[in-house]
């Protein structure tokens, strides 16, 4: 993986090979779990970074649930390499990994990602047949948190189609089953692009989460740390106050499962390129995001609950 070109976009096969190589190179730190299958039968791969122990408290990071947000899958790949590179060298990350596990799902929606490479670069959803010509469900409206409420569509042709029922998408259900069976995930970070935001629950209701003060302060610190590298400016707050009302969202469900440190990112850019962010932006995006991730992971380690 030392020769993997992180400054370029890669297709599904290349990312899969990268993950296998990373595991082969670092067998005592990295393993690959398959937590389920996509609708079209692709494996849902999750990298587990662990120094041992059983059922340690854990941090979950996912990228690429919206397939066209290519900078997220690319950043996820960079994060994976960063973890193995920094472990044993960076004291903060080493301390985290000596006490906690990190799970990283780089391509959360592989069918959609493949579709963006083969048929429609602008595809956002899954590829599950929906009973109409408009194949696919927005997996970020499919979670059992205010499912079916405002901010999600019942129209299969809509980009925000929520699906027929909560957790109808195997890509979502597989994470749900994993989170429930693990039972000890303490932070859950779902990464999207673009528009530069860091948000915490809720999106489906204006009711503030009981940990709002802590989550808000941590978000502020995280984006402050992020901006130290290139001065990139982020907005932050609850989803409903920062972006819009959205029901059935990922981190609303994880928070309701008891995962206090539930966050979602919208990475670069400010809108000049949107989902066609040039590849020379991948590494700067990943580097600055990593600073915010470390802030959240450190806080999670230092504030057990």
């Amino acid at each position, binding site marked *: 993986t030392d020769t993997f070109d992180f400054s370029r976009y890669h297709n599904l096969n290349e990312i899969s090979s990268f993950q296998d190589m990373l595991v082969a190179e670092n067998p005592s730190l990295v393993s690959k779990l398959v937590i389920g299958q996509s609708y079209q039968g692709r494996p849902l791969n999750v990298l587990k970074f662990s120094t041992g122990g059983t059922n340690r408290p854990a941090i979950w990071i996912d990228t690429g649930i919206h397939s066209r947000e290519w900078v997220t899958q690319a950043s996820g790949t960079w994060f994976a390499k960063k973890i193995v590179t920094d472990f044993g060298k960076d004291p903060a990350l080493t301390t985290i990994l000596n006490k906690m596990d990190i799970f990283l799902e780089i391509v959360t929606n592989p069918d959609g990602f493949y579709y963006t490479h083969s048929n429609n*670069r602008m595809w956002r959803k899954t590829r599950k047949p929906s009973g109409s010509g408009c194949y696919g469900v927005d997996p970020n409206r499919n979670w059992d948190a205010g499912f079916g409420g405002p901010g999600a569509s019942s129209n299969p042709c809509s*980009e925000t189609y929520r699906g027929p029922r909560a957790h109808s998408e195997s890509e979502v259900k597989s994470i749900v089953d994993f989170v429930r069976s693990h039972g000890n995930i303490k932070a859950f970070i779902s990464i999207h692009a673009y528009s530069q935001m860091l948000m915490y629950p809720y999106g489906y209701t204006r009711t503030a989460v009981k940990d709002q003060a802590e989550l808000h302060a941590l978000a502020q610190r995280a984006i402050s740390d992020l901006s130290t590298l290139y001065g990139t400016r982020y907005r932050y707050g609850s989803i409903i106050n920062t972006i819009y009302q959205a029901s059935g969202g990922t981190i609303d469900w994880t928070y309701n499962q008891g995962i206090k440190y539930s966050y979602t990112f919208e990475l670069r850019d400010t*809108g000049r390129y949107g989902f066609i962010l040039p*590849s020379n932006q991948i590494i700067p995006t990943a580097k600055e995001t990593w600073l915010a991730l470390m802030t959240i992971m450190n806080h999670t380690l230092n504030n057990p609950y």
Partner: protein
Amino acid sequence: KETFEGHQVLRIVPKDEVQLALIKDLEDMSELDFWTDVTDVAYPVDIRVPFDSLMVLKAHLMSQDIDYTIMIDDLQVMLDEEQQEMESAARLGQPRS
């Protein structure tokens, strides 16, 4: 393979609540792809507009006195550039592998 010749991405910044509501109404038009959603006054909304809908939408925005800028002039041109970059990177990688 779906292509996007002549599709533009427009950036609209609603000036007030009235404009915000008018732009929100556009979300019902399934041919429009909202790259960023309608959130609040002064926050930009980016919409991919197919070539066939461009004239009608621009006329509608002008009639409502809603300003817009063209964020991406021809989406397919950018996609072609991205594709070429990937192919070129893959070619460069071949000798090493």
